[in-house]
Protein backbone atom coordinates (compact mmCIF):
# COMPACT_ATOMS: atom_id res chain seq x y z
CA UNK A 1 0.00 0.00 0.00
CA UNK A 2 1.36 3.43 -0.88
CA UNK A 3 1.76 6.34 1.49
CA UNK A 4 -1.27 8.57 1.96
CA UNK A 5 -0.93 11.76 -0.09
CA UNK A 6 0.07 13.91 2.91
CA UNK A 7 3.15 11.81 3.71
CA UNK A 8 4.16 10.87 0.18
CA UNK A 9 7.04 12.06 -1.93
CA UNK A 10 4.57 14.27 -3.79
CA UNK A 11 3.28 15.99 -0.64
CA UNK A 12 5.39 19.12 -1.22
CA UNK A 13 4.62 19.36 -4.95
CA UNK A 14 2.13 22.18 -5.52
CA UNK A 15 0.92 21.46 -9.04
CA UNK A 16 1.14 18.33 -11.18
CA UNK A 17 0.65 18.84 -14.88
CA UNK A 18 0.64 16.18 -17.63
CA UNK A 19 1.71 16.73 -21.24
CA UNK A 20 -0.25 14.39 -23.49
CA UNK A 21 -1.01 13.72 -27.11
CA UNK A 22 -2.61 10.84 -28.91
CA UNK A 23 -0.02 11.37 -31.61
CA UNK A 24 3.71 10.73 -31.60
CA UNK A 25 6.34 13.22 -32.59
CA UNK A 26 4.25 16.37 -32.13
CA UNK A 27 6.46 17.91 -29.48
CA UNK A 28 5.31 16.67 -26.08
CA UNK A 29 8.84 16.44 -24.68
CA UNK A 30 9.70 19.75 -26.34
CA UNK A 31 6.70 21.50 -24.76
CA UNK A 32 7.41 19.85 -21.39
CA UNK A 33 11.04 21.01 -21.54
CA UNK A 34 10.33 24.57 -22.67
CA UNK A 35 7.49 24.97 -20.20
CA UNK A 36 9.82 23.83 -17.41
CA UNK A 37 12.50 26.30 -18.52
CA UNK A 38 9.99 29.16 -18.72
CA UNK A 39 8.50 28.42 -15.31
CA UNK A 40 12.02 28.24 -13.88
CA UNK A 41 12.84 31.65 -15.35
CA UNK A 42 9.70 32.94 -13.63
CA UNK A 43 11.23 31.83 -10.33
CA UNK A 44 9.39 28.53 -9.89
CA UNK A 45 10.87 25.24 -8.67
CA UNK A 46 10.21 22.69 -11.39
CA UNK A 47 10.60 18.96 -11.92
CA UNK A 48 9.93 16.75 -14.94
CA UNK A 49 8.85 13.13 -14.67
CA UNK A 50 9.40 11.33 -17.99
CA UNK A 51 7.16 8.25 -18.20
CA UNK A 52 8.04 7.45 -21.80
CA UNK A 53 9.79 4.17 -21.11
CA UNK A 54 10.49 3.18 -24.74
CA UNK A 55 11.62 6.55 -26.06
CA UNK A 56 12.81 8.74 -23.15
CA UNK A 57 13.76 12.09 -24.68
CA UNK A 58 14.02 14.33 -21.58
CA UNK A 59 17.59 13.56 -20.37
CA UNK A 60 19.18 14.60 -23.64
CA UNK A 61 17.09 17.76 -23.83
CA UNK A 62 18.86 18.89 -20.65
CA UNK A 63 22.26 17.48 -21.60
CA UNK A 64 22.27 15.07 -18.66
CA UNK A 65 21.89 11.82 -20.57
CA UNK A 66 24.97 10.37 -18.88
CA UNK A 67 23.76 11.02 -15.34
CA UNK A 68 22.86 8.26 -12.93
CA UNK A 69 20.16 8.02 -10.28
CA UNK A 70 21.07 7.61 -6.61
CA UNK A 71 19.04 6.37 -3.68
CA UNK A 72 18.34 8.21 -0.46
CA UNK A 73 16.21 7.37 2.60
CA UNK A 74 12.99 8.56 1.05
CA UNK A 75 13.58 6.95 -2.32
CA UNK A 76 15.25 7.92 -5.58
CA UNK A 77 17.06 11.20 -5.89
CA UNK A 78 16.10 13.03 -9.09
CA UNK A 79 18.82 14.24 -11.44
CA UNK A 80 19.42 17.98 -11.13
CA UNK A 81 19.78 19.71 -14.46
CA UNK A 82 20.56 23.21 -15.69
CA UNK A 83 23.63 25.22 -14.74
CA UNK A 84 22.20 26.10 -11.35
CA UNK A 85 20.70 22.64 -10.78
CA UNK A 86 17.29 24.24 -10.61
CA UNK A 87 15.31 21.62 -12.55
CA UNK A 88 14.92 18.08 -11.26
CA UNK A 89 14.35 15.19 -13.62
CA UNK A 90 13.46 11.52 -13.51
CA UNK A 91 13.50 9.27 -16.56
CA UNK A 92 14.20 5.66 -17.44
CA UNK A 93 16.94 7.16 -19.58
CA UNK A 94 19.02 7.50 -16.41
CA UNK A 95 18.53 3.86 -15.49
CA UNK A 96 19.77 2.28 -18.72
CA UNK A 97 23.21 0.72 -18.76
CA UNK A 98 23.72 1.60 -22.39
CA UNK A 99 21.79 4.42 -24.11
CA UNK A 100 20.90 2.24 -27.09
CA UNK A 101 19.45 -0.53 -24.94
CA UNK A 102 15.86 -1.14 -25.98
CA UNK A 103 13.36 -1.38 -23.15
CA UNK A 104 11.30 -4.21 -24.54
CA UNK A 105 8.72 -4.61 -21.81
CA UNK A 106 5.11 -5.63 -21.88
CA UNK A 107 2.50 -3.63 -20.02
CA UNK A 108 2.74 -5.15 -16.51
CA UNK A 109 6.46 -4.45 -16.19
CA UNK A 110 5.98 -0.90 -17.50
CA UNK A 111 3.16 -0.35 -15.02
CA UNK A 112 5.34 -1.44 -12.10
CA UNK A 113 8.08 1.07 -12.94
CA UNK A 114 5.60 3.88 -13.48
CA UNK A 115 4.10 3.27 -10.03
CA UNK A 116 7.62 3.51 -8.61
CA UNK A 117 8.34 6.67 -10.56
CA UNK A 118 5.22 8.29 -9.16
CA UNK A 119 5.72 7.27 -5.54
CA UNK A 120 9.43 6.71 -4.99
CA UNK A 121 11.14 9.82 -6.33
CA UNK A 122 12.14 12.25 -3.57
CA UNK A 123 11.10 15.45 -5.34
CA UNK A 124 11.12 17.60 -2.22
CA UNK A 125 9.47 21.00 -2.60
CA UNK A 126 8.35 21.83 -6.10
CA UNK A 127 5.96 24.41 -7.50
CA UNK A 128 5.38 22.36 -10.64
CA UNK A 129 5.89 18.72 -11.58
CA UNK A 130 5.48 18.25 -15.31
CA UNK A 131 4.82 14.69 -16.47
CA UNK A 132 5.98 13.94 -20.02
CA UNK A 133 4.24 10.95 -21.61
CA UNK A 134 4.63 8.70 -24.66
CA UNK A 135 2.02 8.87 -27.44
CA UNK A 136 -1.17 6.84 -27.11
CA UNK A 137 -3.81 5.87 -24.58
CA UNK A 138 -2.43 2.68 -23.11
CA UNK A 139 -0.60 1.19 -20.15
CA UNK A 140 1.65 4.15 -19.38
CA UNK A 141 -1.24 6.60 -19.48
CA UNK A 142 -3.69 4.48 -17.52
CA UNK A 143 -1.09 3.69 -14.85
CA UNK A 144 0.21 7.24 -14.57
CA UNK A 145 -3.26 8.75 -14.17
CA UNK A 146 -4.26 6.07 -11.64
CA UNK A 147 -1.10 6.55 -9.59
CA UNK A 148 -1.42 10.35 -9.67
CA UNK A 149 -5.12 10.47 -8.85
CA UNK A 150 -4.75 10.69 -5.03
CA UNK A 151 -2.41 13.64 -5.58
CA UNK A 152 -5.03 15.59 -7.52
CA UNK A 153 -3.16 16.67 -10.67
CA UNK A 154 -3.91 20.14 -12.00
CA UNK A 155 -4.67 18.78 -15.45
CA UNK A 156 -3.25 18.08 -18.87
CA UNK A 157 -1.88 20.06 -21.78
CA UNK A 158 -2.55 18.33 -25.09
CA UNK A 159 -0.12 18.88 -27.95
CA UNK A 160 -0.97 18.48 -31.61
CA UNK A 161 0.40 19.53 -34.99
CA UNK A 162 -2.01 21.30 -37.36
CA UNK A 163 -2.77 18.35 -39.64
CA UNK A 164 -5.94 16.30 -39.56
CA UNK A 165 -3.97 13.11 -39.06
CA UNK A 166 -2.61 14.48 -35.77
CA UNK A 167 -5.85 16.11 -34.64
CA UNK A 168 -7.57 12.77 -35.26
CA UNK A 169 -5.44 11.11 -32.61
CA UNK A 170 -5.66 14.01 -30.18
CA UNK A 171 -9.47 13.83 -30.27
CA UNK A 172 -9.10 10.34 -28.82
CA UNK A 173 -6.76 11.67 -26.15
CA UNK A 174 -9.45 14.20 -25.20
CA UNK A 175 -11.83 11.26 -24.73
CA UNK A 176 -9.20 9.60 -22.54
CA UNK A 177 -9.05 12.73 -20.37
CA UNK A 178 -12.82 12.83 -20.10
CA UNK A 179 -13.06 9.16 -19.19
CA UNK A 180 -10.32 9.37 -16.57
CA UNK A 181 -11.51 12.65 -15.09
CA UNK A 182 -8.36 14.54 -16.06
CA UNK A 183 -8.98 18.26 -16.59
CA UNK A 184 -7.79 19.61 -19.94
CA UNK A 185 -5.88 22.84 -19.35
CA UNK A 186 -5.69 23.47 -23.07
CA UNK A 187 -4.36 22.54 -26.49
CA UNK A 188 -1.02 23.60 -27.98
CA UNK A 189 -0.59 23.54 -31.75
CA UNK A 190 3.07 22.84 -32.49
CA UNK A 191 5.03 22.95 -35.78
CA UNK A 192 2.62 25.63 -36.89
CA UNK A 193 4.32 27.07 -39.95
CA UNK A 194 7.97 27.40 -40.93
CA UNK A 195 9.57 30.74 -41.70
CA UNK A 196 12.31 30.33 -44.28
CA UNK A 197 15.52 31.78 -42.78
CA UNK A 198 16.61 32.90 -46.26
CA UNK A 199 13.57 34.83 -47.49
CA UNK A 200 11.14 34.88 -44.51
CA UNK A 201 8.36 33.20 -46.50
CA UNK A 202 6.14 31.20 -44.16
CA UNK A 203 5.18 27.71 -45.37
CA UNK A 204 2.61 25.55 -43.59
CA UNK A 205 4.60 22.34 -43.86
CA UNK A 206 2.21 20.43 -41.64
CA UNK A 207 -0.93 22.23 -42.73
CA UNK A 208 -2.68 24.91 -40.64
CA UNK A 209 -5.36 25.61 -38.06
CA UNK A 210 -6.22 22.11 -36.88
CA UNK A 211 -5.24 22.70 -33.26
CA UNK A 212 -7.30 25.85 -32.84
CA UNK A 213 -10.32 24.22 -34.50
CA UNK A 214 -10.03 21.21 -32.24
CA UNK A 215 -9.91 23.40 -29.14
CA UNK A 216 -13.04 25.22 -30.29
CA UNK A 217 -14.84 21.97 -31.18
CA UNK A 218 -13.94 20.40 -27.84
CA UNK A 219 -14.65 23.50 -25.77
CA UNK A 220 -11.18 23.67 -24.24
CA UNK A 221 -8.75 26.61 -24.11
CA UNK A 222 -6.41 27.10 -27.04
CA UNK A 223 -3.03 27.87 -25.50
CA UNK A 224 -1.30 28.95 -28.71
CA UNK A 225 0.55 27.98 -31.90
CA UNK A 226 4.28 27.33 -31.81
CA UNK A 227 6.06 27.66 -35.17
CA UNK A 228 8.79 25.34 -36.46
CA UNK A 229 11.99 26.97 -35.29
CA UNK A 230 15.33 25.40 -36.23
CA UNK A 231 16.93 27.27 -33.32
CA UNK A 232 14.53 25.46 -30.98
CA UNK A 233 15.33 22.09 -32.61
CA UNK A 234 19.04 22.85 -32.30
CA UNK A 235 18.73 23.88 -28.62
CA UNK A 236 16.95 20.64 -27.82
CA UNK A 237 19.62 18.62 -29.64
CA UNK A 238 22.35 20.40 -27.67
CA UNK A 239 20.52 20.39 -24.33
CA UNK A 240 20.56 24.19 -24.08
CA UNK A 241 18.15 26.57 -22.38
CA UNK A 242 16.25 27.97 -25.38
CA UNK A 243 14.08 30.22 -23.20
CA UNK A 244 17.05 31.98 -21.66
CA UNK A 245 19.36 31.99 -24.68
CA UNK A 246 17.07 32.71 -27.63
CA UNK A 247 14.33 35.13 -26.52
CA UNK A 248 14.23 36.67 -30.00
CA UNK A 249 13.71 33.39 -31.79
CA UNK A 250 10.41 32.73 -33.55
CA UNK A 251 9.12 30.06 -31.15
CA UNK A 252 9.84 32.09 -28.01
CA UNK A 253 6.71 34.29 -27.83
CA UNK A 254 4.33 31.33 -28.14
CA UNK A 255 6.21 29.23 -25.58
CA UNK A 256 6.42 32.14 -23.13
CA UNK A 257 2.70 32.77 -23.58
CA UNK A 258 1.87 29.13 -22.80
CA UNK A 259 3.89 29.33 -19.61
CA UNK A 260 2.20 32.61 -18.67
CA UNK A 261 -1.24 31.06 -19.05
CA UNK A 262 -0.21 28.21 -16.74
CA UNK A 263 1.13 30.71 -14.22
CA UNK A 264 -2.04 32.81 -14.46
CA UNK A 265 -4.16 29.72 -13.98
CA UNK A 266 -2.29 28.69 -10.86
CA UNK A 267 -1.74 32.05 -9.17
CA UNK A 268 -3.40 32.41 -5.73
CA UNK A 269 -5.85 34.98 -7.13
CA UNK A 270 -7.23 32.60 -9.74
CA UNK A 271 -8.49 29.86 -7.38
Amino acid at each position, binding site marked *: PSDPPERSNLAAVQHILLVLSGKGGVGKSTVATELALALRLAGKRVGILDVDLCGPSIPRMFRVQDSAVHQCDSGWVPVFAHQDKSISLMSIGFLLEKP*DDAVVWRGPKKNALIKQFVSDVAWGELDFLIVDTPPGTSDEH*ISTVEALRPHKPLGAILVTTPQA*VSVGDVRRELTFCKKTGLRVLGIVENMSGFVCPHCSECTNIFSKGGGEELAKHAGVPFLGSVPLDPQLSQSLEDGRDFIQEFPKSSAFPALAHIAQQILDGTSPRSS
Partner: protein
Amino acid sequence: PSPRSSSASLADCPGTGSAQAGSAAACQGCPNQRLCAAGAAPDPAEAAELRARLRSVKHTVLVLSGKGGVGKSTFSALLARGLAAHDDKQVALLDIDICGPSVPRMMGLEGEQVHQSGSGWSPVYVEENLGVMSVGFLLSSPDDAVIWRGPKKNGLIKQFLRDVDWGEVDYLIIDTPPGTSDEHLSIVQYLSAARVDGAVIITTPQEVSLQDVRKEINFCRKVKLPIIGVVENMSGFICPKCKNESQVFPPTTGGAEKMCQNLNISLLGKVPLDPQIGKSCDKGQSFLAEVPESPATSSYRSIIQRIQEYCDLQHSQEEKIM
Protein backbone atom coordinates in the same frame (compact mmCIF):
# COMPACT_ATOMS: atom_id res chain seq x y z
CA PRO B 1 22.47 -32.85 -27.63
CA SER B 2 19.90 -34.40 -29.94
CA PRO B 3 17.59 -32.28 -32.10
CA ARG B 4 14.27 -31.42 -30.44
CA SER B 5 11.20 -33.11 -31.84
CA SER B 6 7.98 -31.15 -31.62
CA SER B 7 6.42 -33.70 -29.21
CA ALA B 8 9.37 -33.42 -26.83
CA SER B 9 9.16 -29.64 -26.79
CA LEU B 10 5.45 -29.69 -25.99
CA ALA B 11 5.91 -32.10 -23.09
CA ASP B 12 8.91 -30.37 -21.49
CA CYS B 13 7.98 -26.77 -22.26
CA PRO B 14 7.29 -24.86 -19.03
CA GLY B 15 4.66 -22.84 -20.89
CA THR B 16 5.26 -19.73 -22.92
CA GLY B 17 3.37 -17.63 -20.39
CA SER B 18 5.16 -19.01 -17.34
CA ALA B 19 7.79 -17.24 -15.30
CA GLN B 20 10.33 -19.85 -16.43
CA ALA B 21 9.62 -19.25 -20.09
CA GLY B 22 12.97 -19.24 -21.84
CA SER B 23 15.01 -19.99 -18.73
CA ALA B 24 13.96 -23.52 -17.68
CA ALA B 25 16.32 -26.46 -18.29
CA ALA B 26 14.04 -27.72 -21.03
CA CYS B 27 14.38 -24.38 -22.85
CA GLN B 28 18.01 -24.95 -23.78
CA GLY B 29 18.21 -25.52 -27.49
CA CYS B 30 14.59 -24.63 -28.14
CA PRO B 31 14.38 -22.38 -31.21
CA ASN B 32 11.93 -20.13 -29.35
CA GLN B 33 14.13 -19.71 -26.30
CA ARG B 34 15.18 -16.18 -27.14
CA LEU B 35 11.63 -15.05 -27.77
CA CYS B 36 10.39 -16.68 -24.57
CA ALA B 37 13.13 -15.09 -22.55
CA ALA B 38 12.20 -11.75 -24.08
CA GLY B 39 8.63 -12.41 -22.96
CA ALA B 40 7.15 -13.37 -26.30
CA ALA B 41 6.61 -16.89 -27.60
CA PRO B 42 4.06 -18.58 -29.81
CA ASP B 43 1.61 -21.09 -28.45
CA PRO B 44 2.15 -24.07 -30.79
CA ALA B 45 -1.52 -24.47 -31.70
CA GLU B 46 -1.94 -20.77 -32.34
CA ALA B 47 1.25 -20.72 -34.37
CA ALA B 48 -0.13 -23.43 -36.64
CA GLU B 49 -3.35 -21.48 -37.13
CA LEU B 50 -1.51 -18.28 -38.03
CA ARG B 51 0.88 -20.13 -40.32
CA ALA B 52 -2.09 -21.53 -42.25
CA ARG B 53 -3.73 -18.13 -42.63
CA LEU B 54 -0.50 -16.40 -43.68
CA ARG B 55 0.55 -19.13 -46.12
CA SER B 56 -1.04 -17.15 -48.94
CA VAL B 57 1.15 -14.11 -48.20
CA LYS B 58 4.33 -14.02 -50.27
CA HIS B 59 6.19 -11.10 -48.64
CA THR B 60 5.73 -9.36 -45.30
CA VAL B 61 7.35 -6.03 -44.51
CA LEU B 62 7.11 -4.32 -41.11
CA VAL B 63 7.41 -0.53 -40.91
CA LEU B 64 8.95 0.44 -37.59
CA SER B 65 10.54 3.29 -35.71
CA GLY B 66 11.42 3.82 -32.09
CA LYS B 67 10.20 7.38 -32.48
CA GLY B 68 6.71 8.72 -32.99
CA GLY B 69 5.71 11.13 -35.72
CA VAL B 70 8.55 10.36 -38.14
CA GLY B 71 6.30 9.18 -40.95
CA LYS B 72 5.71 5.44 -40.47
CA SER B 73 2.06 5.54 -41.49
CA THR B 74 2.76 7.99 -44.29
CA PHE B 75 5.46 5.69 -45.60
CA SER B 76 3.40 2.51 -45.13
CA ALA B 77 0.51 4.03 -47.06
CA LEU B 78 2.76 5.17 -49.92
CA LEU B 79 4.67 1.88 -49.97
CA ALA B 80 1.38 0.01 -50.27
CA ARG B 81 0.13 2.34 -53.01
CA GLY B 82 3.46 2.18 -54.83
CA LEU B 83 3.48 -1.61 -54.84
CA ALA B 84 -0.20 -1.75 -55.84
CA ALA B 85 0.47 0.47 -58.86
CA HIS B 86 1.43 -2.79 -60.57
CA ASP B 87 -2.00 -4.26 -61.39
CA ASP B 88 -0.74 -7.82 -61.22
CA LYS B 89 0.34 -7.46 -57.56
CA GLN B 90 -2.05 -7.97 -54.64
CA VAL B 91 -1.17 -5.71 -51.71
CA ALA B 92 -2.42 -5.71 -48.11
CA LEU B 93 -1.88 -2.92 -45.57
CA LEU B 94 -2.35 -3.84 -41.90
CA ASP B 95 -2.36 -1.05 -39.31
CA ILE B 96 -1.57 -2.37 -35.83
CA ASP B 97 -1.43 1.05 -34.18
CA ILE B 98 -4.36 0.41 -31.86
CA CYS B 99 -4.31 3.76 -30.03
CA GLY B 100 -3.55 6.07 -32.95
CA PRO B 101 -4.73 4.41 -36.20
CA SER B 102 -3.77 6.85 -38.96
CA VAL B 103 -4.00 4.53 -41.95
CA PRO B 104 -7.77 4.75 -42.66
CA ARG B 105 -7.63 8.53 -43.11
CA MET B 106 -4.45 8.37 -45.21
CA MET B 107 -6.03 5.85 -47.54
CA GLY B 108 -9.25 7.85 -47.90
CA LEU B 109 -11.20 5.20 -46.00
CA GLU B 110 -12.44 7.11 -42.96
CA GLY B 111 -15.85 5.94 -41.82
CA GLU B 112 -15.59 2.56 -43.52
CA GLN B 113 -16.61 -0.52 -41.59
CA VAL B 114 -15.35 -4.09 -41.56
CA HIS B 115 -17.64 -6.83 -42.89
CA GLN B 116 -17.66 -10.43 -41.80
CA SER B 117 -17.97 -13.23 -44.28
CA GLY B 118 -17.84 -17.00 -44.03
CA SER B 119 -14.10 -16.93 -44.54
CA GLY B 120 -13.40 -14.23 -41.95
CA TRP B 121 -13.16 -10.44 -41.78
CA SER B 122 -13.05 -8.72 -45.10
CA PRO B 123 -10.37 -6.04 -45.55
CA VAL B 124 -11.54 -2.65 -46.82
CA TYR B 125 -10.45 -2.22 -50.41
CA VAL B 126 -9.02 1.05 -51.76
CA GLU B 127 -8.39 -0.53 -55.13
CA GLU B 128 -9.17 -4.03 -56.32
CA ASN B 129 -5.61 -5.03 -55.54
CA LEU B 130 -5.11 -3.01 -52.34
CA GLY B 131 -6.87 -4.03 -49.12
CA VAL B 132 -6.57 -2.37 -45.71
CA MET B 133 -7.27 -3.39 -42.11
CA SER B 134 -7.12 -1.14 -39.04
CA VAL B 135 -8.77 -0.77 -35.64
CA GLY B 136 -9.97 2.54 -37.06
CA PHE B 137 -12.63 0.60 -39.01
CA LEU B 138 -13.95 -0.91 -35.79
CA LEU B 139 -14.58 2.43 -34.08
CA SER B 140 -17.93 4.13 -34.56
CA SER B 141 -16.83 7.71 -33.90
CA PRO B 142 -13.66 9.75 -34.49
CA ASP B 143 -13.71 10.57 -30.78
CA ASP B 144 -13.71 6.93 -29.68
CA ALA B 145 -10.56 6.17 -27.73
CA VAL B 146 -9.11 2.69 -27.46
CA ILE B 147 -7.91 2.78 -23.87
CA TRP B 148 -6.55 -0.74 -23.59
CA ARG B 149 -3.71 -2.29 -21.69
CA GLY B 150 -1.25 -4.57 -23.44
CA PRO B 151 -3.02 -7.95 -23.31
CA LYS B 152 -6.18 -6.64 -24.97
CA LYS B 153 -4.14 -4.97 -27.71
CA ASN B 154 -2.29 -8.24 -28.31
CA GLY B 155 -5.61 -10.06 -28.65
CA LEU B 156 -6.76 -7.74 -31.40
CA ILE B 157 -3.48 -8.00 -33.27
CA LYS B 158 -3.78 -11.76 -33.19
CA GLN B 159 -7.31 -11.47 -34.55
CA PHE B 160 -6.14 -9.24 -37.35
CA LEU B 161 -3.66 -11.87 -38.43
CA ARG B 162 -5.89 -14.87 -37.84
CA ASP B 163 -9.36 -13.70 -38.84
CA VAL B 164 -8.80 -11.33 -41.75
CA ASP B 165 -9.33 -13.04 -45.08
CA TRP B 166 -6.48 -11.47 -47.01
CA GLY B 167 -6.61 -14.01 -49.80
CA GLU B 168 -3.59 -14.41 -52.05
CA VAL B 169 -1.26 -11.51 -51.24
CA ASP B 170 2.05 -10.56 -52.82
CA TYR B 171 2.96 -7.93 -50.18
CA LEU B 172 1.65 -7.54 -46.64
CA ILE B 173 2.77 -4.19 -45.23
CA ILE B 174 2.38 -3.77 -41.47
CA ASP B 175 2.29 -0.28 -39.99
CA THR B 176 3.20 -0.15 -36.30
CA PRO B 177 2.93 2.37 -33.43
CA PRO B 178 6.12 3.94 -32.06
CA GLY B 179 8.04 2.10 -29.35
CA THR B 180 9.25 -1.35 -28.44
CA SER B 181 6.38 -2.79 -26.46
CA ASP B 182 3.40 -5.13 -26.55
CA GLU B 183 2.42 -4.48 -30.16
CA HIS B 184 5.96 -5.03 -31.40
CA LEU B 185 6.65 -8.12 -29.34
CA SER B 186 3.31 -9.58 -30.32
CA ILE B 187 3.58 -8.97 -34.04
CA VAL B 188 7.04 -10.54 -34.09
CA GLN B 189 5.77 -13.45 -32.01
CA TYR B 190 2.71 -14.07 -34.17
CA LEU B 191 4.61 -13.64 -37.41
CA SER B 192 7.31 -16.11 -36.35
CA ALA B 193 4.87 -18.70 -37.68
CA ALA B 194 5.08 -17.11 -41.11
CA ARG B 195 7.80 -15.66 -43.29
CA VAL B 196 8.85 -12.05 -42.67
CA ASP B 197 11.12 -10.46 -45.22
CA GLY B 198 12.19 -7.76 -42.82
CA ALA B 199 11.66 -4.35 -41.31
CA VAL B 200 11.95 -0.89 -42.79
CA ILE B 201 12.91 1.61 -40.11
CA ILE B 202 11.85 5.23 -40.41
CA THR B 203 13.64 8.14 -38.76
CA THR B 204 14.04 11.90 -39.04
CA PRO B 205 17.53 13.46 -39.08
CA GLN B 206 17.82 14.71 -35.50
CA GLU B 207 19.53 12.93 -32.63
CA VAL B 208 16.31 13.02 -30.60
CA SER B 209 14.87 10.61 -33.21
CA LEU B 210 18.02 8.61 -33.83
CA GLN B 211 18.43 7.81 -30.14
CA ASP B 212 15.04 6.07 -30.18
CA VAL B 213 15.69 4.45 -33.55
CA ARG B 214 18.91 2.85 -32.33
CA LYS B 215 16.82 1.17 -29.64
CA GLU B 216 14.44 -0.11 -32.30
CA ILE B 217 17.38 -1.49 -34.26
CA ASN B 218 18.55 -3.27 -31.13
CA PHE B 219 15.04 -4.65 -30.67
CA CYS B 220 15.11 -6.04 -34.22
CA ARG B 221 18.46 -7.67 -33.57
CA LYS B 222 17.26 -9.10 -30.26
CA VAL B 223 14.23 -10.77 -31.86
CA LYS B 224 16.16 -11.69 -35.02
CA LEU B 225 14.05 -9.54 -37.33
CA PRO B 226 16.06 -8.75 -40.48
CA ILE B 227 16.40 -5.05 -41.25
CA ILE B 228 15.80 -4.15 -44.88
CA GLY B 229 17.09 -0.65 -44.25
CA VAL B 230 16.47 2.84 -42.87
CA VAL B 231 14.55 5.72 -44.43
CA GLU B 232 15.45 9.27 -43.36
CA ASN B 233 12.25 11.26 -43.61
CA MET B 234 11.75 15.06 -43.32
CA SER B 235 15.31 15.37 -44.64
CA GLY B 236 15.60 19.01 -45.59
CA PHE B 237 13.09 21.56 -46.84
CA ILE B 238 13.17 23.51 -50.09
CA CYS B 239 11.46 26.87 -49.72
CA PRO B 240 8.80 27.13 -52.44
CA LYS B 241 9.56 30.84 -52.83
CA CYS B 242 13.35 31.21 -52.85
CA LYS B 243 14.23 27.55 -53.47
CA ASN B 244 16.91 27.57 -50.76
CA GLU B 245 17.26 24.48 -48.61
CA SER B 246 16.84 24.59 -44.82
CA GLN B 247 17.32 21.88 -42.23
CA VAL B 248 14.11 22.06 -40.23
CA PHE B 249 15.24 19.06 -38.16
CA PRO B 250 19.01 19.46 -38.09
CA PRO B 251 21.14 16.28 -38.33
CA THR B 252 23.37 17.38 -35.46
CA THR B 253 24.97 13.95 -35.09
CA GLY B 254 25.26 13.07 -38.77
CA GLY B 255 21.67 12.00 -39.41
CA ALA B 256 20.62 8.57 -40.54
CA GLU B 257 23.61 8.34 -42.85
CA LYS B 258 26.13 8.33 -39.99
CA MET B 259 23.98 6.00 -37.88
CA CYS B 260 23.65 3.51 -40.75
CA GLN B 261 27.41 3.61 -41.34
CA ASN B 262 28.09 2.98 -37.65
CA LEU B 263 25.58 0.12 -37.42
CA ASN B 264 26.28 -1.37 -40.84
CA ILE B 265 22.72 -1.01 -42.07
CA SER B 266 21.50 0.03 -45.48
CA LEU B 267 20.22 3.62 -45.89
CA LEU B 268 17.35 3.13 -48.33
CA GLY B 269 17.00 6.83 -49.03
CA LYS B 270 16.23 10.33 -47.79
CA VAL B 271 12.86 12.01 -48.31
CA PRO B 272 12.63 15.81 -48.14
CA LEU B 273 9.79 17.74 -46.48
CA ASP B 274 7.03 18.73 -48.87
CA PRO B 275 3.87 20.45 -47.55
CA GLN B 276 1.88 18.49 -50.12
CA ILE B 277 2.66 15.24 -48.33
CA GLY B 278 0.78 16.23 -45.20
CA LYS B 279 -2.05 17.64 -47.30
CA SER B 280 -2.56 14.50 -49.34
CA CYS B 281 -2.41 12.35 -46.22
CA ASP B 282 -5.07 14.49 -44.60
CA LYS B 283 -7.23 14.22 -47.72
CA GLY B 284 -6.67 10.49 -48.10
CA GLN B 285 -5.06 10.86 -51.50
CA SER B 286 -1.89 9.36 -52.89
CA PHE B 287 0.92 11.92 -52.77
CA LEU B 288 2.75 9.92 -55.45
CA ALA B 289 -0.18 10.32 -57.82
CA GLU B 290 -1.08 13.91 -56.84
CA VAL B 291 2.42 15.43 -56.97
CA PRO B 292 4.47 13.23 -59.30
CA GLU B 293 7.05 15.95 -59.98
CA SER B 294 8.04 16.49 -56.33
CA PRO B 295 11.59 15.50 -55.33
CA ALA B 296 9.93 13.66 -52.44
CA THR B 297 8.03 11.50 -54.94
CA SER B 298 11.26 10.45 -56.69
CA SER B 299 12.80 9.61 -53.31
CA TYR B 300 9.80 7.52 -52.27
CA ARG B 301 9.72 5.71 -55.61
CA SER B 302 13.39 4.84 -55.47
CA ILE B 303 13.04 3.56 -51.89
CA ILE B 304 9.98 1.47 -52.82
CA GLN B 305 11.94 0.01 -55.71
CA ARG B 306 14.79 -1.01 -53.40
CA ILE B 307 12.36 -2.69 -51.01
CA GLN B 308 10.76 -4.57 -53.87
CA GLU B 309 14.17 -5.73 -55.08
CA TYR B 310 15.07 -6.88 -51.57
CA CYS B 311 11.86 -8.93 -51.35
CA ASP B 312 12.35 -10.46 -54.79
CA LEU B 313 15.85 -11.49 -53.76
CA GLN B 314 14.49 -13.26 -50.67
CA HIS B 315 11.98 -15.09 -52.82
CA SER B 316 14.54 -16.30 -55.31
CA GLN B 317 16.93 -17.35 -52.55
CA GLU B 318 14.18 -19.45 -50.98
CA GLU B 319 13.38 -21.07 -54.30
CA LYS B 320 17.03 -21.99 -54.66
CA ILE B 321 16.99 -23.63 -51.22
CA MET B 322 13.84 -25.58 -52.06
